[in-house]
């Protein structure tokens, strides 16, 4: 059982996860940012490994990825940082990024190194379910890494059940079919979708992400799910002031209310 499973066993409501792009705003900031987030009360973290062509991301995360690559961030650099990070930070860490850097690194080597440096789960939006199931599932399992799947308002019930069967930490519920950085849609249709998934009584906890940016949207998401993820809003915050480490506590308080 990894740190994610332990977390979900002990805490079932109002879980807050924060996403940030490794290498942004500058290189060697991952450890400091993660430490500040843990201290401020984040329950788990998603660390983005940057990619040149992030199709599922909006302008904020695109720009942070570009900047991170220019700063020299690579998987090797990130894994070195995470080794240090694990000496100081105990909350679960998820890596988020795209297929191609992982494939070039070697999927087995990626899983092995990630596990060694204390990573608990991976989100790869463009890794298809078929390939995961047939090529990579056993490797992920061998190293105790959770693969986290996304679900959108358009995902069929049958497919959600299948995803639930393949998941072993949580399911990432998208607030709408959109790229990152939009605003939370709380139309009746979306509430209907949250309600629909909630009443399916899935085995895995649900965490809502995309468009969660403040206390209002976080609280709304927590009505339907076990927690929510803030991404673009935090990345935007990191880019907004030079002394960003000082204000992280306040940022998290603002989200949690």
């Amino acid at each position: 059982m990894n740190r994610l499973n332990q977390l979900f066993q002990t805490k079932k409501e109002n879980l807050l996860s924060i996403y940030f792009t490794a290498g942004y705003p500058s290189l060697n900031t991952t450890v400091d940012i993660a430490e500040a987030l843990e201290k401020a009360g984040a329950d788990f973290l998603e660390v983005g490994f940057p990619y040149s062509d992030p199709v599922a991301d909006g302008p904020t995360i695109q720009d942070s990825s570009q900047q991170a690559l220019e700063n020299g961030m690579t998987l090797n650099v990130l894994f070195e940082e995470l080794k240090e990070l694990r000496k100081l930070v105990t909350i679960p860490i998820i890596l988020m990024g795209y297929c191609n850097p992982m494939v070039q690194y070697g999927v087995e080597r990626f899983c092995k190194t990630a596990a060694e440096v204390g990573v608990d789960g991976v989100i790869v939006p463009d890794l298809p379910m078929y390939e995961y199931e047939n090529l990579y599932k056993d490797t992920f399992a061998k190293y105790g890494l959770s693969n986290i799947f996304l679900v959108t308002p358009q995902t069929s019930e049958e497919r959600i059940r299948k995803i639930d069967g393949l998941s072993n930490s949580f399911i990432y519920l998208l607030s709408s079919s959109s790229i990152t950085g939009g605003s939370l849609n709380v139309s009746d249709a979306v509430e209907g979708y949250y309600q629909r998934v909630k009443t399916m009584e899935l085995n895995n906890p649900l965490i809502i992400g995309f468009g969660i940016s403040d206390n209002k949207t976080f609280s709304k998401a927590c009505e339907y799910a076990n927690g929510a993820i803030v991404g673009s809003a935090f990345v935007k915050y990191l880019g907004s002031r030079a002394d960003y480490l000082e204000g992280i506590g306040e940022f998290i308080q603002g989200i949690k209310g």
Partner: protein
Amino acid sequence: MKYGVNEQGYYGDFGGAYIPEMLYPNVEELRQQYLNIINDADFKAEFNQLLKDYVGRPSPLYHAKRYSEKYGCNIFLKREDLNHTGSHKINNAIGQILLAERLGKKRIIAETGAGQHGVATATVCALKGIECVVYMGEIDIQRQAPNVARMKMLGATVVPATSGSKTLKDATNEAMRDWIANPVDTHYIIGSVVGPYPYPEMVAQFQSIISQETKKQLLAHTGKELPEYVMACVGGGSNAMGMFYHFLDDEGVKLIAVEAAGKGVDSGHSAATTALGKEGVLHGSRTILMQTEDGQVVEPYSISAGLDYPGIGPQHAHLHKINRAKYVSITDEESLQAGLLLSQTEGIIPAIESAHALAYLEKMQFQKDDNVVICLSGRGDKDLDTYIKYFGY
């Protein structure tokens, strides 16, 4: 077909559908429906009628006599340049707009590099009265101004892609992001044999009309259906796939695919994907792409915007790996010289993309009675500025 796609959407090691979950329903809908739709009698009738009356097919297979003399063989040019809108791109655009209509889609998006696919898409949207949004890299918008104006005149909205390197790959990223945000009413008309399955297969089928006609026409010209060589340029690879399609199983036919070497394969300014690339994942499929050791996509370069792409379609990656087709490359200069030569020996100004295929003739050795078919994928009108600048007319 021996070189065809399997049920999971793979050509050997390449293909698949590496897409975020947000695109799964759209792509799955296509996968489930496209074969039924395109094999339907009503679809076929409308497709064939439009290709004939609107595009002007069959495109001629022209025996280029003076050109043949120069190279000491029989050279036949498949005249896709004579199609309405000036390139092979219209074949696929017609097929996909009819498909979109039958899927009940109300809005079309597309990416474009040189603007040829954007113009073809804007054209078929005007024909059907469907809203059209074309994503185009900010840099390409500047270097292909006439095609931008053409798209606007045809009623399309042209949206600049301002992310990354601001060229074709970024336009493709933006189109995918648009599709993610508009999953229900929008169809994405991809312009080449790239993208998640079923796109590479579907686009190849729409373009396969090129080789289907060629076989018949060659028989009429030479008494034989099969030539010794079939050649085409490769950006994403749609004109080449269309040109190769019905020859794939005829193992005696040598297939030659010509990539853009830009300023030279080792110059750091090149788009010679098979020479410089490695296996990986780009725009929804497992294929060969130009990338750094860390798996970041490398920005390609070619004087021809249509070949300025860091990947190739997955079926090409497969044909390359198993050596069914030979992948070679031609520099900017060689292609411009070939364009000039065709202009002055045959009175045909080719697109710079197509001129890459022509230029490779210089590097080949022929027997006197070899029959060689080259896909002349487009006309050179859009490239006049570039030719004029280079030759100083």
